[in-house]
Structure formats: structure tokens, C-alpha cells
């Protein structure tokens, strides 16, 4: 995105990528393939569990895992080709290989054919992140592995143990649970989704448990070993768990190996994230960094916003990212989405706020969909009524959060949402009702 924006702003852009397919983690081994698998597995699971509620009988329902995987790969390929064509359209030169910054203004690209040197006044580091692991766990790339491998298991694991109840852990847990695995999720904290609003996360956990996911909170894993065909997961103070596969989903780390940060004296923080100023400039002249590699929420859209803002600032002198209105979506069923502050954040800051809740149970569209679980929570400043956070657990929450994020980008008050006409019957009416409730004026509850 940064490359495309830079090209639009008439810079001569070269992009160095070591992977054969363009698109980065999100497109190749993250958001896109996982959403493809989530959709396939959800369709199967709904056909099996949910169709009967609609009066539809399906017998001898089966799935074809290789076909599911092929569809997923097809989706990735289409989108990756899309990026390629955008590159061509914007006349961005692509260099396949591993980039290395030898000094400000000089990048060397190493590949099997040798090395190419590129010169530029502006260098943007957008190398992203890689899955983190725990110090005492040895990833073998097969039975004990990360999300990358879990997107391509050749067969459905009998028993999958997932370490980490963040977005990645929950989404892949859902995929394999729906396809038939027994799934146990181990989480070191006392709750799932630590970034999300606690109350929403608690409700989400109850729903996921109802779907058969097994949670063991406050479980600190201290050893994972492979014994023959089985894995053994040892948790402090608990019996060892035997399983077929272990998915380590404990977060991600900045990917900076081989970039040459040390020789350039580019500053990083303790965790290895590149330190930047408000315009994304690193401590080395002409070198900028954005995305996962600089820390903050590990979200493709956040990286994209930063990339665009960085380039715009370099070229036009103005670039800005509103970090208060970056939405975050977890694609479980139902989806979980949030933007802005959580109730815990507000309490910690001592902000005086009002909370407006609306359950999807009372929403007409949710009733017709037969998806009435969850609720919308709108948090607004008690005095100014400005929206401070919106948290949604429910059908298509990921789509619903867009309205909230837009409203927040416009510094809207909860009354502004309440005063905007919403089509009936639709799910976004639930957001409007929650906004009304934040002002004590709910109509339908």
C-alpha cells in the first residue's frame, strides 16, 4: 500500500520482497487464508448444526479437506496476483530477494542470481512480523508449529492443543473444531482476548464453549515434547495433556533479521521493535519504518494506514493516522469487533463515561437470521457524549464496526449515531439502539 501510494505521488518506487507471492503475512499466511478456512468450515458446521433450525435437512454431509485447502490457496493466489497487477499499473519495480540496508540510501537485494544494489533517498522498512514462540518450546514445523502450518494441516487433527487465546488462536481453534477436532485452548491469563473489552470477551468465551471449544485459563505451558505420534503438553500444576498437534499462537515478533539494523545503528526497543518518531522516521536519516515492525496492534489495516501516512508525510508534509479509531475484528462465530477504548481502559484512566448496551436478541434482522447471540456496547464520554469505544459481539460484527470507526473518525457523539437513519431491518440498527441507550433513550429494549 505504501508503495502504491508513493507511486501515486509520483515517486519512483522499488519494492523488495523475499517471498515469491506478494501480499505479505496477511494475504499469504494470515488474515486471508484463515478467513477462507473459517468460511468453509463455518458453512460445513452450520449445515451440520444449524440448518435443522431453518427446516433444512442435510444427510451424510461431508467435506473434502484437500478441496477446502485448494479453494483457500486459490483465494490467496487471486489476491496476490491482484497486488502484482497493481504494482504493474503503478509502475512499481519489484525485486525478488532479501533486502539489506548497507547504508542510508543504499539497499542490496540478495537472491539466487547474485546481488543488486538500489539507491534511494527514502527507504521504508515494512518487513512485518513473524510468529513468536515461548522460550522452552521447540517448534518442529510439523506437530508443534505456528499459525502458518495450522493453515495447511494435511488432515484434521484428532486433538489439537492451542497455546494462546488471542485472535489467531481462537480463529484457528474454530476452524479445526468445526472440521471435527477436539480443541483445547490454553491461556496464561485469566481471560481470553486480552486486548478486547473484558465483558465482551467473557460473553464470547461462553459462546465458544457452547460450540465445544475447551478453555483452560491461567495455564502456563512449560514444556511441549513429541513422543512418537503424540505431543505432550505440560502445564504448571496440571496433568500433562496428550494431543496430536500443538498450535503455538502466543503473539508475533518484529521481523528484522538480516536488515542490517545494527550496523546502521537504527534504534529498537527491548522487544526488538524499531523505534520511530511521529512521522515514522527511524534514527537513521532517510530510513522509515511502519507496520508490525514498529509495534502497536498487529493489524494489516493499521500497517496500511501507517504506510500511507508515512509516504504522504514524506512527499506532501502531511500524513496522519487516527490511532483511536482503528477497528479490530476476531472472526469467530459470532464475530467479535471493537474500536476505541474498552471499559477497563476508561476506568483505569478515570474517565467518566456512559455505557449503552443493546442485545441482538432484540434486533429484528438478527432474529430473522437466527443469529441472536451477543450484543453491542457503546461507550461515550459522560459529559461531551463523544464516542470513546464500541464493542460488538454478534453476527457480522466485523462489518458493523465500520460504522462505529467512521463515526469515531469524525469525533461523533453517541447522539450523532442515534440521529442517523438506519435501514430496517438491519443489524446496524443494534448499534443505533446501543447509541440511544448510551443516552438513556433506547427504543427497543
Amino acid at each position, binding site marked *: 500500500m505504501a508503495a502504491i501510494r508513493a507511486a501515486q505521488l509520483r515517486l519512483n518506487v522499488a519494492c523488495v520482497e523475499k517471498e515469491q507471492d506478494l501480499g505479505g503475512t496477511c494475504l499469504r499466511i494470515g488474515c486471508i487464508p484463515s478467513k477462507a478456512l473459517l468460511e468453509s468450515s463455518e458453512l460445513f458446521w452450520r449445515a451440520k448444526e444449524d440448518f435443522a433450525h431453518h427446516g433444512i435437512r442435510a444427510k451424510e454431509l461431508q467435506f473434502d479437506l484437500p478441496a477446502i485447502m485448494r479453494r483457500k490457496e486459490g483465494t490467496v493466489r487471486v489476491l496476490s496476483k491482484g497486488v502484482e497487477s497493481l504494482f504493474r499499473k503503478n509502475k512499481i519495480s519489484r525485486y525478488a530477494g532479501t533486502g539489506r540496508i548497507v547504508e542510508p540510501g543504499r539497499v542490496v537485494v540478495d537472491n539466487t542470481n547474485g546481488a543488486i544494489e538500489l539507491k534511494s533517498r527514502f527507504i521504508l522498512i515494512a518487513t512485518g512480523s513473524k510468529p513468536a514462540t515461548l522460550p522452552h518450546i521447540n517448534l518442529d514445523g510439523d506437530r508443534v508449529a505456528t499459525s502458518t502450518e495450522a493453515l495447511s494441516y494435511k488432515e484434521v487433527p484428532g486433538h489439537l492443543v492451542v497455546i494462546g487465546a488471542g485472535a489467531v488462536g481462537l480463529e484457528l481453534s474454530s476452524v479445526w473444531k468445526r472440521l471435527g477436532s477436539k480443541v483445547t485452548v490454553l491461556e496464561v491469563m485469566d481471560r481470553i482476548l486480552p486486548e478486547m473489552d473484558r465483558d465482551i470477551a467473557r460473553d464470547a468465551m461462553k459462546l465458544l464453549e457452547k460450540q465445544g471449544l475447551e478453555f483452560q485459563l491461567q495455564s502456563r505451558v512449560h514444556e511441549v515434547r513429541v513422543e512418537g505420534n503424540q505431543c505432550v503438553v505440560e502445564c504448571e500444576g496440571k496433568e500433562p495433556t496428550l494431543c496430536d498437534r500443538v498450535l503455538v499462537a502466543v503473539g508475533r515478533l518484529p521481523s528484522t533479521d538480516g536488515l542490517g539494523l545494527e550496523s546502521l545503528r537504527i534504534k529498537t526497543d527491548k522487544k526488538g521493535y524499531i523505534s520511530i518518531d511521529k512521522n515514522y522516521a527511524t534514527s537513521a536519516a532517510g530510513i522509515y519504518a511502519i507496520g508490525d515492525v514498529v509495534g502497536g496492534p498487529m493489524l494489516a489495516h493499521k500497517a496500511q494506514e501507517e504506510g500511507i501516512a508515512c509516504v504522504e508525510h514524506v512527499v506532501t508534509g502531511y500524513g496522519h493516522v487516527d490511532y483511536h479509531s482503528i477497528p479490530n475484528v476476531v472472526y469467530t462465530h459470532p464475530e467479535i469487533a471493537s474500536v476505541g477504548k474498552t471499559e477497563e481502559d476508561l476506568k483505569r484512566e478515570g474517565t467518566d463515561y456512559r455505557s449503552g448496551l443493546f442485545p441482538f436478541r432484540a434486533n429484528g434482522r438478527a432474529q430473522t437470521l437466527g443469529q441472536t447471540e451477543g450484543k453491542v456496547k457503546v461507550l461515550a464520554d459522560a459529559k461531551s457524549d463523544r464516542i470513546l469505544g464500541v464493542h460488538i459481539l454478534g453476527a457480522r460484527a466485523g462489518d458493523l464496526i465500520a460504522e462505529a470507526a467512521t463515526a469515531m473518525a469524525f469525533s*461523533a457523539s453517541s447522539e450523532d449515531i442515534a440521529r442517523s437513519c438506519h435501514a430496517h431491518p438491519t443489524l446496524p440498527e443494534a448499534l443505533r439502539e446501543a447509541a440511544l441507550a448510551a443516552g438513556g433513550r433506547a427504543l427497543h429494549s
Partner: protein
Amino acid sequence: MPIELKVPSVGESITEVEISEWNKTEGDSVKRDEVVAILETEKVTVELPAPGNGVITKILKKKGETAKVGDVIGYMEVDGKREKKIGKELPQAETQRETEQKEATRSRAGEKSKDATDRDRAETKETVRLMPAARRILVERGVKPEEVPATGPGGRLLKEDALRYLERVEGSKAEQPTGEKETPISPSSDVREEEIVPMSPLRRRIAERLVEAQQTAALLTTFNEIDMTAVMELRRQYRESFEKKYSIKLGFMSFFVKASIEALKLIPQVNAEVRGTDIVYRNYYDIGIAIGGGRGLVVPVLRHAERMSFAEIERAIDDFARRAETNKLNLDELRGGTFTITNGGIYGSLLSTPIINPPQSGILGMHAIQERPVVRDGQIVIRPMMYVALTYDHRIVDGREAVTFLRHIKGLLEDPARILLEV
């Protein structure tokens, strides 16, 4: 151009009002929203505000006359330069009056804000970008958007900008953030606050009548207690067959209504009223049932309750309660009554002294049923007990009669067969 002064819709079920006061006479000039007349119904009093600045030109219905909702009761001539002002005179006088009149002007609010919105669109020529909630506040308070510093993205004027401006200009709390009157549910507010809320017309009416009762009648309360074992047993025994036959639950109220009628027959003074220097006795029994309704306490009346069966009484009360909730009782149903029963027991009251509903002379207070140790045949046993209270007008009811009345009710309910036999 003359403008009609019409009787506004006062609420469901009310079709007629009485002109209780004209604050203005023909030729008087009035300001927009100033109260020109006070209209009264049995349930509420309503203020009729002027729809604009101008002069009252004609009064069609005089004080004391009745008019139907929608009737034209007068005319006024509105100034040419109408409603140019709201903002300027707003600071002191308007704010206070505005809250007072909020209720009365509500029906016209839509109309008002619509043309105000158009006006403000025309005036600003979209030079200021208003967020929807900010637009509402500024239009309501008559503030020009240009006067308010806008801090939103792209120069948009936010709700918080409007609130901040009003707070600064008016030097007081402009309004609650939501625009509603509820007390904020601020979790961590340790500021001591007083909130001044005007009494609703209905509340004022209730207050007046209660004070009137206290001042004109010589009120006295006598108490007794009733062992509810027999009634409860009877209900248990016939609950199902009763419900099956009449599709209504057999409650306690029908027993108390029946017992009261027997007691009223025995002591007719309690069913009578003082009218001047006369006492008016009746041979009919219209029993008011006090119900906490959606808008406040209402007392619908069971007409000729002496002719009603248990099922008819239960059904009528159930119907009253339902309609009281949604304010759908007719005025006719609330009028009159010769005696009242009030049941504080549903809220858990153990003992109270009800106030009579003038010009009636008695009110029976029911209370919560509670298991209590009582002595029967020299033994302490546990029985479901209810305290009952009779407040009566001592001017026409003597203490002996009042006590007899209440003891008769007690006797009937402890042995319900007596209700059937009327002994």
C-alpha cells in the same frame, strides 16, 4: 394572518377539557411560548402556549366552558418578524420557563424544529458543517452555528463544541449531555447535587387532592388483622376450576371487594359523603381500586360492585391494571366512587394509614400477608396474617362504627362462607 389557538391533544382517552383560566384577554400581546390559557381535565392540567409572538385577537370559549380536543378556542395575530429571537433572550428567563413548558410544547416540537432547521440551513449556507447532535442543540437553543468554535475533523461542529459553548455563554450547566432530563448515571460522581424538576400537572393534582382531604375531613385510622388461612385455602381449592371456567386468576381483591360491600351495607355512613351540611347515603356501591399506573396513581372505579361476581371483579381489576400501565383508562372510569380499596401489600407494606379520596368517607388499606405466630385455643400457631387499616372521616363515621366495619370485614374473610350467606 390570524392563527388559531387550538386545544392540543392532552393524552389518550381525553377528548374534552375545561378552560380553567385565560391569562390573556383580547388585545393583549404575547410572546412565543408564553402561556395564554390553562386547560383542565380531571386527570391533568395543561398549559396552552402561544405559537408565536403577537396579539390575542379573539377569545371564543370563556373560562369555565368546555371544549373538545382540536377545537379552536381563540385567535391571535402573529408578528411579521416572528421568532427572530430565541437566542437573545434565552439566558435567564427562557431556560427556566422552557423546562416548565417542555411537556406542554412537546406536541408542537416537531413543527418548530423543522422550520427552525430549514432556517438554520438557509442562514448558514452550509458554511459550517454541523454534526447531527450539534444541529439539534443549536437549533433548540437558537444559537447560530457561526458563533460556536468548531473543533471537529474538517472544521465540523461537534456536539461537545455546542455543549462547551452553551456552558460558557450561559455560565451554567447547559443541559445534560443526552438532551434528556434523566439524572446521569455517572459511576464515580461524588459531587453533591440537587436537581430541580417541576411537578407534572398530574402530580400537582394528586398533591392538591391529598392536601384537600387532610384539611377538610377529620381523618382517623383504625387497624385490625386478618387471619388469611381460610381465604387462602379456598383459593387453593378452587384456583384451577375457577381459572378454567373464567380464564382469570382468583385473586384476593375480589374477596376484599365482596367483604367491603357487606361491611358497607352494615355501616352505610362509610359509603356516604358530606355535602355541605347534609349527609348523602347511597344504595349503590362504586368501589375505587387504587392502582400505580404508568403516569402515577390512578383510582378506576368498579360501578355497582354489589352486582358483580368474583370473576367479574377480578376481570375488571385485571383490565384496569393493564390499561393503567399504558395510560389508557377513560376519564369516566376514574370519576366518582363511593369507597376505595388500596393495596400497599403488593409493594410489601406491612402497615399504613391511607388517605381518603374526597368526597368519600372511607378507604380500606390492605397490606402484605406475613406468616406470624398467633395464639389459637391457647396454642401458639403460625398463620398467614394481614394487617388492615380503615381511614375514615370522623365527621360522619363514629369510632364504634369504624371498628365494627373493620371487624366485620375480618369476620367475613376469616370465614368466607359468610360472604355467600351475607351474614
